[in-house]
């Protein structure tokens, strides 16, 4: 059974965020995540529907929220072709039970459509292979265009 991700995107996001960002930039929250699974061994591909395709000078940003992980574990976010987006891994002492957020950026020019597909995998020190994170390990991925 592959765990289902929760994507805490939008709703209030678009209305609330754009005014805050106005002095500096235009910021579009990502719209509804489309939960489609494409098996790739242990990896799960999640398609996220953006409100529009990013323009050439814009960046697609991700906010990845993770739950408590054992020391040494990390969650890797990548594109289906293997291009790394980033890694969610704290440094040093972390308060137990606390969620953490990580800001990441999709490499510029890698997304020309309004659909973003990402893969998350966890490297866990007590396990022998990478796997899909559970709901408690990967809380959400939110995406924005700026």
């Amino acid at each position, binding site marked *: 059974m592959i765990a289902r991700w929760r994507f805490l995107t939008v709703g209030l*996001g678009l209305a609330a*965020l754009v005014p*805050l*960002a106005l002095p*500096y*930039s235009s*910021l579009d*929250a990502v719209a509804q995540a489309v939960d489609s699974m494409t098996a790739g061994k242990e990896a799960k591909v999640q398609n996220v529907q953006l409100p529009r395709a990013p323009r050439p000078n814009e*960046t697609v*940003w991700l*906010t990845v929220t993770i739950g408590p992980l054992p*020391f*040494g*574990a*990390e969650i*890797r976010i990548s594109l289906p072709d293997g*291009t*790394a987006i*980033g*890694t*969610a*891994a*704290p*440094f*040093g*002492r*972390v*308060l137990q039970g*606390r969620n*953490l*957020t*990580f*800001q*990441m*950026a999709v*490499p*510029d020019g890698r997304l020309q459509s309004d659909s973003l597909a990402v893969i998350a995998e966890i*490297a*866990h*020190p007590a*396990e*022998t*292979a*990478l796997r899909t994170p559970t709901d408690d390990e990967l809380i959400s991925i*939110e995406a*924005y265009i*700026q």
Partner: protein
Amino acid sequence: MIPNHINRRTLLKTTAAAGAAAMAPIPARGAANYRRKNVNSPGAKRDVESYMKAVEVMLGLDPDHPHNWYRNAFTHLMDCPHGNWWFLAWHRGYLGYFEETCRKLSGDASFALPYWDWTADPEVPPVLFDTVLDPDNSSLYIKDTADFEKKLNAPMTAYWEGLTTPQRTEQYKRCFPAFETMWQDAISSFAEQPHGRFLTKANPKLDENTAEAVSIDTVLSALKPTIFAVEIDDKTPAFNSIITETHQTAQTGFSLLEGQPHNKVHNNTGGSVDDKGAIVPPYGFMTQFLSPIDPMFFLHHGNIDRLWDVWTRKQIAIGEPTGPADEDAKAFNSEPFLFYFDADENQVTSTAGEFLEIGAFDYDYEPGSGEEAIQVPVAALQAPLASSAVVSASSLSDGAVATINVPDALLKSVRAPSEERRQFARITFTPPMDVAGTSFRVFISPKDVAPDLSRDSVEYAGSFEFFGLRHKHVGPVTFTLGIDKTLDRMEAAGLLQPGQPISFTVIADGSGVSTDGKMKGTLEAVDVTVL
């Protein structure tokens, strides 16, 4: 088709001819007394030697001494912020006082801390192996936990007993209500030889994921945000990590800079890392809050601080704020940092706002990866207030001179608060073919006054240099230099008078001076403008 492993940095290095011709004006920082250099550059040799000397002295100090190498690492364990918006400011203060201490203990009055540009060189610098900078292969380091306990417990107990009430409050917020809780954290952070560091001389390269985290694409993305910091429920990309109530708040949210290159380099170099990339025991120093026990720490954080400086200059160039938003500034600036020791062994009482600028530490950086993030839109700069009227024919090795007459508008700009008006000089010159290792210094002085051509002179305005090993130039290049501080000094001394001439002297300095000892380049023009 470009292979994936060739990143934008590689392309920049190999397409320098086009890069130089199309180079956008880049604001350089104004005069600084100390220059932090890339640890792998030939020019850093003396600083590296002084660093080794200082580390050796600190390792040899009695553990009762606040400059003892391990005591210095405890400052980090007891006070460092991570995953919040004070991360950069706190580490700037930590490195700044450490650098001054190294200057004193090494006896090298010009010492500046080298940095490790992991984007350009994604492997542990060779000098960190088999020297006093190698915690696994130097007999000067404490070998095991028992000896660490024996040597440090009593001095740290005494230090703890002497903490002030505000310092105790800080420790309480950090979840160190008593010495024993802090000490337990220290013991669990200590790494025994030979497990102090995961990467070795035989295996010095960052792993694939970490290399991606330090790639030029990631670094340039990290430099993109124009906002200093945001609350956790505001998803606008920001340069700093998440706003929290105090810097002792446990890790909350990571900016791209802190979460990717910072965390990944710590975790990969500290290791050990299994074949999936997960960290497994035994844990090395760099993975924990006693990470300053590994001398690599200061080279790593020097690069993080350098990128903050790049971001700051980028913000200035595009007219965006370099600090917290007005409504957040009071909370940020007043945060107490109470655990640094200065070079004279005094405990420092400081606040975060003191480290928003490099300030009294008075250093700048030899350019490194990420400088290209600074692109000054031409539209952001006003039309020149003044352009050079006379250009001497002297070579750049002798000092080429351009002169302008000070317009009223420039004087008015200089007298306005610096946050409202900033002044720039655009230096246009045709460089010689080979500029490797050469820095071009700029001095401003009254027309008939020959400037003192040293970096610590009052006439020194700053310097600029090309990035990369080789550039082939086919035409003039323009660099933009912030000249606020120098003009402020001249104004204070009554040397800026309306309509009176001032001179800009540009002189080459460095190993790149061409075969006959003369730079063949030509100074073309100097424009002065304001933002």
